[in-house]
């Protein structure tokens, strides 16, 4: 399997909120490799450094230490070329609210200097009937699907999804998972962050678990479960503390 993304010892420092003269590492020496055509998940609690890691790969955030390569291109040296071949869905993004979906997609197409079939793109994310709607009038799930459509205008090699299903209802979540699998099925590499375990298990070929700016484990979901999940308990507990209390102190009334 060919490597498409390589992160070597990535570091991102931010000033401490309580003391601006000192810094802390939001991403603290992260290395990984992502292969072509896989779905790679970065899993972790809020504040673990998932989004910052993605932003460094996307050329959105300056890299303070280490290096990152996308399709062989050094992100720090040539972010412009990297941006040509990736698609990005940000965690929360709004769009110009005075434009409808078709106009917005055409705008994004123009930014990549491409003529696109906006209607076909909308149809591919199941939003054809919303072509003339404004983004403000979309539901949460529709908004996420539209964000993905925007990320697809340049037919990217790698698609980055930052918490794509956060805040969606179960149907919308399922629907989005199907879309992600479909895109992966036609050969797109997908990198996503999530704190939804079920999502990671269902979608990802491999998972990296991040905490405090470091990767604490990386493997396929199955191996991770085998390695780290606790053994099932011997026998289920029954009864409660009152039973214990009564067993130890007897049933007799005391006055």
């Amino acid at each position, binding site marked *: 399997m060919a490597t498409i993304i390589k992160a070597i010892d990535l570091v991102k420092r931010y000033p401490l909120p309580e003391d601006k003269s000192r810094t802390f590492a939001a991403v603290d020496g992260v290395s990984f490799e992502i292969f072509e055509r896989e779905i790679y998940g970065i899993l972790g609690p809020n504040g673990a450094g998932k989004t910052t890691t993605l932003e460094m790969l996307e050329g959105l955030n300056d890299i303070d230490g280490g290096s990152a390569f996308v399709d062989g291109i050094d992100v720090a040296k040539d972010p412009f070329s990297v941006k040509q071949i990736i698609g990005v869905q940000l965690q929360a*993004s709004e769009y110009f609210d005075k434009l409808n979906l078709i106009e917005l997609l055409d*705008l994004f197409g123009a930014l*990549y200097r491409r003529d696109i079939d906006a209607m076909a793109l909308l149809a591919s994310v199941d939003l054809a009937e919303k072509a003339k709607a404004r983004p403000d009038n979309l539901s949460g799930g529709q908004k996420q699907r539209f964000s993905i459509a925007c990320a697809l205008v340049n037919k990217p090699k790698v698609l980055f999804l930052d918490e794509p299903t956060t805040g969606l209802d179960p149907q919308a979540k399922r629907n989005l998972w199907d879309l992600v699998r479909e895109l992966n099925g036609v050969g797109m590499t997908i990198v996503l962050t999530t704190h939804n375990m079920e999502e990671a298990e269902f979608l990802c070929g491999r998972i990296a678990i991040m905490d405090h700016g470091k990767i604490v484990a990386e493997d396929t979901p199955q191996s991770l479960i085998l390695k780290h999940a606790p053994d099932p308990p011997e026998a289920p507990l029954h009864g409660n503390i009152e039973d214990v209390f009564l067993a130890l102190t007897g049933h007799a009334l005391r006055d």
Partner: protein
Amino acid sequence: MLSKLQRHLSKVFLKIFLRDRQSIFFSLFFPIIFMSVFGFLNNGDSEPVSLGLVNNSDSGVAADFVNLLMEDPLFTVTAGAEADLRQQLIAGDQMAVLVLPADFNEPGAAPRAGTQLRLLTDAAQFRQLGLIQPVLEQKLIAIERQFRGVETMFSLAIEDVQARSQRYLDFLLPGLLAFTLMQLSIAGSGFNVVEFRRKGILKRLFVTPIQPRDFVTAIVVARLGIVLLQLSLLLAYALFVLNVNIVGNFVEFYLVVIFASLVFLNLGFCVGSIAKTQQAVMAIGNIVIFPQIFLSGVFYPIEAMPALVQPIAQLLPLSFVVSGLRDIAVDGAALAGIVPSLLGMAIWFVLGFVLATRMFVWKDVAI
């Protein structure tokens, strides 16, 4: 001149801005009210002076004098008793009270030299006295001449070499237009950019291979279209409803308007780049806008300001615009005649564009 992408982006932003019709028209509200106030209330003629007149004499000369004063459009004369008029003077209803003494030329007697007329004034209105006194003296001399049968030797005929009527509104229009242009332009680029940043739109755009140059150019071009639409409406109102005069070439006047808008759109971008939040952009915008309203000769010429402030005031971007537009509108100058103003604007334009594209920050999404 513009690349294909810049043209496309400009069209998109034009569409976005045009769909915000409310703000396009509401921002014209204030300048239109302002111009109308000056246009309708201050129609070039100064208000007549209210003058109380106490005639203690029953001579024909006194009566003639009273008639002469009453006919004069400069005064609104109220005749009455001294005590009443004194009260009115104190109340501020009269500007001054003129008292003709009982011996103001006794009946039948020849005109006498040295009769004294008393003029009662209120110290609060002292400034006006300077205006009234010469006029009154002029009247007295005229009457005296009539009585003595002396022919006037000299007379002054005022002839306007530029043969035009100059109202304060004619002077004000270029200033007000320049000021409105500055406000619309700075708000149009700066405030928009901060709004885009706040919403995360800038960050989303930055994920695509967009260049700051293209983005800045497209917004400036699109906003220029909107600002020119607004200014044209304003100008049409001034020219056709308020009958304001533009002496010089209208096309040249309009070219300066376009150039000036570009200058302030760029400066607005700088403001939008420094400010991270909506409140900050308001504050910084006001810091840029307010001093210029008072220092750049919008309402009165820069020459009327303290000598110490003048050299600084003259270097402000709005000063160059106001003086350029005013030279054309009021004095009929041609473009070749306002080269210093154009040069000043050009320097601010380059400065603005360089700063706007350099300082422009995509990534920081202030929330």
